[in-house]
C-alpha cells in the first residue's frame, strides 16, 4: 500500500501535537492574564493537531499518489557510527572512538573502498588529535582504558 507523503506528514504532526498535549497534562494552564507554564504548550499542541489535520485532508483529496522511496541503509550506518563515537569517547578516549566511527560511517557509502577507508581513518584520527587536543586544547584523552 502506498501512502501519500502528506498523509504520513499529517500523522506525524498530529502525533507530535498529541504528545505535546499529553506531556503538558500536569502543567498549570492559568488564565489569559496570568498564563501558567501549560498555556503556551497546550495552545501549540492543539494548533499542531489542527495544521496536521489540514495537511491530511488536503492530501486525501489529491490524486497524484506516488510511492515514497526510503533508503534506510546509509542512515542506519551513519547513526550507528555516531552512537559508537558517543559510547566509546568517554570510555576509551578520542582515538579509539574515531577508529570505530570512520569505518562504520564509510559503510554508509556505496562507493567506499576499504583501503581508502583505512588511510582516511588513520589520517583523520591524527588530524583530529592534532587540531582538537593539541591545537584547540579541548580536555580529551587520546587513549584511555
Amino acid at each position, binding site marked *: 500500500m502506498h501512502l501519500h507523503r502528506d498523509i504520513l506528514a499529517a500523522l506525524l504532526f498530529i502525533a507530535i501535537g498529541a504528545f505535546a498535549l499529553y506531556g503538558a497534562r500536569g502543567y498549570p494552564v492559568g488564565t489569559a492574564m496570568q498564563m501558567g507554564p501549560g498555556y503556551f*504548550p497546550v495552545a501549540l499542541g492543539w494548533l499542531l493537531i489542527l495544521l496536521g489535520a489540514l495537511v491530511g485532508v488536503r492530501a486525501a*483529496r489529491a490524486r497524484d499518489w506516488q510511492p515514497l522511496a526510503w533508503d534506510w541503509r546509509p542512515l542506519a550506518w*551513519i547513526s550507528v557510527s555516531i552512537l559508537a563515537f558517543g559510547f566509546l569517547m568517554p570510555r576509551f578516549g578520542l582515538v579509539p572512538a574515531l577508529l570505530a566511527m570512520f569505518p562504520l560511517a564509510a559503510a554508509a557509502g556505496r562507493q567506499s573502498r576499504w583501503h581508502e577507508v583505512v588511510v582516511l581513518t588513520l589520517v583523520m584520527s591524527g588530524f583530529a588529535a592534532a587540531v582538537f587536543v593539541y591545537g584547540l586544547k579541548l580536555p580529551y584523552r587520546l587513549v584511555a582504558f
Partner: protein
Amino acid sequence: MGVIESLALGFQVALSAQNLAYCFAGVALGTLIGVLPGIGPLSTIGLLFPITFYLPSIPALIMLAGIYYGAQYGGAITSILLNLPGETSSAVTCLDGYPMARGGRAGAALAISALASFLAGCLGTLLIALAGPPLGEWALAFGSAEYFSLMLMGLVGSAVLTQGDAVKGLAMVVVGLLIGLIGTDVNSGLPRYAFDVPELVDGVGFTVIAVGLFAVAEIATNLERREPQTAYTGALTSIMPNAAELARSFWPAMRGTGVGAFFGLLPGTGPALSSFAAYMLEKKIAREPARFGKGAIEGVAAPEAANNAAAQASFIPTLTLGIPGTAVMTLMLGAMVMQGVTPGPQVVTGNPELFWGIVASMWIGNLMLLVLNLPLVGVWVRLLRIPYRWLFPCVVMFCCIGNYAVNNNPVDVYLCAALGVFGYVLAKLECEPAPLLLGYVLGPLMEEHLRRAMLLSRGDPTVFFTRPISLVFMVATVLVLLFTVKGLDLRVHRRG
C-alpha cells in the same frame, strides 16, 4: 555619533590583528564549505558554535558572519564548474554558469560572479551602516506586544515563503516552538517536557538541532543519490572577463543587489529565494530572453549579487531588532546570547564596538573574498576533485566531536543521531527544517513576550491590534497568510 565616526570606530575594531585573523579564517572557511557540496553554512556554524565559547564576542561573531557570506561566494564556483549547487542559494547560477563553462568562459563566469558578489557585499554593508541605527532607534519604542507580533510575522513569513508547502511550513514552525519549550520554564521554574532526564532540564542544545537535522540528515539523503562527480575544469585558462561581459553584467548585478537586499530584510526569506527572484527578473526584462539558460552572463551576475546582498541584509533585523530572519541568523543570534550580548535595539547604542566592528569587518571580509576568489580560484577548483566518499565520513567526525564538545556529554551525541533520523524522515516527507529551527530559537522569547503583553493588558488580546506598530505587523502577517490562501482554503476547491 555620526555614521562616519561610527564607521571609523568599526574599522579600528575590525583592523586589529586578532579580528583580521578571525575574519580571514571565517571567509576562508566559508568559501571552503561553500565550494564543497553537501556542507552548508548552517551546519558549519552549528559545529563551530561550541568552539566560539572560548573566544571573546567580537572575533567570534566576525568569524561566524564571515562563514555565512563567504559561503555565498564559494557556492558559485561549484555551480559554474560542476553544474551542482555548492549551496542552495547558488542553485540558479548553474543555469547559465555551467553553459558558460562548457563554452570555454568558465574563468569569466567565475570572475563575474566574484565581482557581482563583491559589489553586492559593499552595498549591503553600506545598507547595514545606514539603515541599522535608525531601525534600532525606532525599535527602542517596542513593547512586548510589538515583539510578539514581529516574531509572529517572522515565523509565518519563514513558513510561507520558503520552498515547499506553506501549511507544512507552519506546522514545522509549531514543532520548532514546542522543541524550544523543552527545559525549565523561566517564570515558574517548572521543567517542561524533560521527562526526568537531567540533560533535558536545561533544554535541547542549539548545536544538536542544527547538526542533527541539517548535517546528518543531509549526508543520508546525499548518499542515496548516485554521485555525478565530473568537474568541468578543462578550460580555466584566463579568468578575466572581456569588456562586453563586464558592461553587460553591471546593471543585472545592481538590480540583483536590490532584489537581494529586499529579501534579506524580509524575515523568513533568505539568499536562496532572492537569487531565484533576481534571475527571474533579469529573464523577464531581457531583450533576448532566449539567451538565458545557454550561458547568459546576466544569469550569473544577478543571482550571485542577490544572494550576497541578501546574506548581508539579513544581518539588519538580527543585529538591530534581535529577530533572526533566516535559519543561519538564528545561529548568529544564539551565538550572541551565548556570548552574553542581549540581542535587540540596544546593541547599536549600548555596544557600538560590536555592531560597527562587525559592519566594518564585513566590508573587509568581502575584500578578502575578492582576493580569495579571483587570483586563488584554482585552489578551490582543486578541492572539487575530492570525492564525496572521502568527504562525508569527515563531516560525520566533525558532527560527533562538535556535539560532544558542547557539554562533554555523550547524551548530546546520541541526541544528534536521533535528530538525524528525524531530519531524514522530514526530508522524505518534504517538510522544510528551516522554519523549525526558527521556531525553536524564537519559542521561549515569544512565550515570554506573549505572557508579558497579556499581563499588562489584563488578559485583553486586542492589545496586539490597538497598538499601531503591533497592528502593522499583524496586518502584514494576515496579508502573508492570505497570499497563500489558495493552498489553505479547502472550500475553494470543493466549490470549483
